[in-house]
């Protein structure tokens, strides 16, 4: 059976879609990716769709789903390499892929993911540096 390979690269997962996806393959990828995020504790997912010539509403929904599911597992998703014709078609179709980060190519996508993660680790640092009293305050407020 066909399968889209998921590569691990440090804190990130890398997926390059080289074939036209039929539904089953797309659904499997969605499930595999989310499982993989959970298993590896990855902080970012990069999906390269530069070889994909068609993104229809189903495929768009899968991409959106991967983004939201990964977000719930504390990983950001960046879609890179969308062909211009695909972008035009998606907007006219009425599917602007809100909620998914995009970048022009893999390199820029990696930079975007790194910057997203840096932000969140800085946040973590701030919480830890707070005094015990502050923490207590926050808990009592909530």
């Amino acid at each position, binding site marked *: 059976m066909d399968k889209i390979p998921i590569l691990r690269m440090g804190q990130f997962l890398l997926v390059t879609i080289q074939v036209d996806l039929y539904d089953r393959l797309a659904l499997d990828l969605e499930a595999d990716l989310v499982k993989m995020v959970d298993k590896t504790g990855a902080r970012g997912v990069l999906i390269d769709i530069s070889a994909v010539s*068609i993104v229809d509403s189903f495929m768009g929904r899968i991409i959106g789903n991967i983004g939201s599911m990964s977000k719930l597992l504390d990983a950001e998703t960046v879609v890179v390499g969308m062909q211009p*014709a695909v972008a035009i078609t998606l907007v006219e179709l009425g599917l602007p892929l809100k909620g998914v980060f995009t970048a022009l190519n893999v390199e820029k996508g990696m930079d975007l993911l790194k910057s997203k993660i840096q932000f969140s680790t800085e946040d973590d640092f701030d919480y830890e540096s707070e005094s015990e009293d502050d923490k207590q305050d926050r808990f009592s407020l909530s």
Partner: protein
Amino acid sequence: MSVITLAKDTMMVVREQDVVPFRNRVKEHASKIRMGVVNQTKLITAASELVRNMLRYANGGLAIIEVVSKGRDNGIKLTFSDKGPGIPDIALALKDGFSTGKSLGLGLPGTRRLVNEFSIESEVGAGTTVTIIKWANG
């Protein structure tokens, strides 16, 4: 001016795996008449939506690819006919965001925006036929 059919290709679509070969067939015909990449992408995306509808709601059906010409324009005409449950309210089905399935409800209205001509006929209990035309320079 009337639409003349220059070539015709018929394909049954009954399984999910038939979708990609069907799209490739549409692409072949579209590039043969020198349709631009953006228009090709729009046409194939529209075809993909309609084939998917046919599979989901009617367990598949017949897809016809035609190379047509009207005056100086060449184009691709696609006809999708199924013997599914039919659409009781076509106006509602063409509205953005309406879906009886679990989809986003973009299929029909989105498809209409992507092509030059769009028509739909449906009879409840008998089936649905959707026809679209995309002109090479449309």
